[in-house]
């Protein structure tokens, strides 16, 4: 095989692994959108907040330490202990569930029966609030996150491809883990939504509020449940991104990359979020690979959005979205 083909293959493979990271964020959007018809702008920030909280717990950081120190003239930053990851993750999940409960209590409850755009605006507010809260609670510096996932080049991929093509591909092990984790997450979500009582209730609420009430489903419980699951997915996304590039506030910008993913995959499809993420990841890398000599680098910054624009023009419902047909 010629070198160009091999390099392109390697680029595509790396694209897949980056793409799955986009998918993880996009998944959270799809979940909430499917269950409540809300486009949750705060999903990216939720991933950031979850990662910050996780690191905070792991390293025994004192929440609001800057605030406390400023108010009382103290100088505390750490509890002086570290929490094992296996304990820190459930603790973070508990925080995200608490957050879901608060969102329902303070925001959603008062916006029942409002137009989707109103709810969307509310989530924008929520995004900024949560970003600020994360800053005050845990500080704004970049923090390394280590949950024990392996990092660096995958020897296995390197050796296999070397034996096959005489050229070893460079693939990050972490990305392979991301693939596996995404697969497990999606399988679990599908089983939950298709085969359990609460999953069915969740789909019911997404479909028709009145009908859901009439069969005895509590909307409020389902909303807390939905936002908790979105928080869980955000945590997974936060862990993966945090492990890759450290927990930093630019993480919330990934949310923007999730938008083209959603436009490609369709806002209502879980498989769509996965495939959309992969397509954007691969597309981005390949486009960069082939076009860099012609138009220069940094195409990764805008390629996804151009692709999304093309999709909006020709297939607005996305690859897997439900086509909206109006009967007249």
């Amino acid at each position, binding site marked *: 095989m010629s070198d160009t083909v091999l390099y392109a293959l390697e680029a595509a493979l790396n694209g897949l692994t980056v793409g799955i990271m986009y998918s993880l964020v996009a998944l959270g959007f799809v979940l909430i959108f499917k269950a409540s018809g809300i486009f949750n702008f705060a999903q990216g920030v939720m991933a950031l907040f979850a990662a910050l909280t996780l690191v905070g717990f792991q390293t025994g950081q004192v929440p609001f330490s800057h605030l406390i120190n400023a108010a009382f003239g103290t100088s505390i930053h750490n509890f002086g202990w570290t929490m094992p990851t296996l304990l820190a993750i459930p603790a973070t999940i508990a925080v995200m569930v608490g957050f879901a409960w608060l969102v329902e209590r303070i925001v959603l409850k008062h916006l029942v029966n409002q137009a989707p755009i109103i709810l969307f605006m509310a989530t924008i507010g929520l995004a900024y609030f949560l970003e600020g809260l994360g800053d005050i609670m845990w500080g704004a510096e970049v923090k390394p996150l280590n949950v024990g996932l392996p990092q660096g080049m995958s020897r296995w991929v390197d050796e296999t491809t070397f034996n096959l093509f005489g050229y070893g591909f460079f693939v990050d092990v972490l990305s392979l883990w991301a693939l596996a984790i995404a697969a497990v997450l999606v399988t679990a979500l599908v089983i939950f939504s298709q085969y359990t009582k609460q999953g069915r209730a969740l789909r019911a609420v997404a*479909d028709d509020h009145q009908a859901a009430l*009439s*069969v005895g*489903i509590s909307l409020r419980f389902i909303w807390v449940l939905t936002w908790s699951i979105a928080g869980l997915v955000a945590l997974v996304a936060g862990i993966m991104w945090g492990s890759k590039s450290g927990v930093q506030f630019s993480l919330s910008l990934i949310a923007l990359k999730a938008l083209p993913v959603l436009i490609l995959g369709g806002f209502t499809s879980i498989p769509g979020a996965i495939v959309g993420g992969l397509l954007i990841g691969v597309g981005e890398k390949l486009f960069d690979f082939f076009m860099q000599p012609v138009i220069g680098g940094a195409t990764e910054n805008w390629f996804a959005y151009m692709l999304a624009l093309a999709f909006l023009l020709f297939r607005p419902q996305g690859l897997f979205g439900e086509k909206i047909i109006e009967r007249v």
Partner: protein
Amino acid sequence: MLDSTEGYVTADGRQIGGVVMELKNITLRFGGVEAIKNISFDIRKGEIRAIIGPNGAGKSSMLNVISGFYNPQEGDVIYKGYKRPRMRPYQVARMGIARTFQNIALFEGMSVLDNIMTGRMNLMKSGFFSQAMWWGSAAREEAEHREKVEKVIDFLEIQPIRKTPVSRLPYGLKKRVELARALAAEPQILLLDEPMAGMNVEEKEDMSRFVLDVNDEFGTTIVLIEHDMGVVMDLSDRVVVMDYGKKIGDGTPDEVRNNQAVIDAYLGVAHE
């Protein structure tokens, strides 16, 4: 006037029980508009109770009061001898009151089977965590409920469309699926809001038969709103007549038919 515990025997010889639900001096307002004005009536175990009246009489509002979608400003709903506090619709549903809607409220994206399964939501014991933890018992419970649902499906003769997404069904079948979902909940009281609206004669006959069969087979107490006078008079044991939010008649179909106030308000000119 009947005693609240004593039953009566219908014209076709069915034994009706005591009072299941009593509505006492219900008044419902929307802003300045009084949709229901001081209405009282009772519903007895095993009977088919109709609420009729011209458009805008407040029939649907009455049904919404019973099902908890509206909470009346005045008056009490007494269910099984206890005064019902202010409740949300899902709580009322959990007390064994199932309903259908005038404009069909089904889960359009879900299959017929899934729709009917949601009807059993209240009867499923496994909670969220036990379902996550004890997969086996949850699966067993799911299978049991599935069996009951299949019975309802057989009963309403909708086997061929079990797996069809609801959005693809014609109107008449949607109505039947909605009835199936309500029935799957094994309700104490079944509320039907215009079950035959927009149907052709054949579909109406089918639906009437199902309503009677449900009542006969399961002894379900049924409260229904219907416009078609022929249907109402055939189906129901007792009829409440409403006009402009007030109750103007209450009794057996024959009594109501001969009530002058009802004839004036609802039937218009008597067809003699």
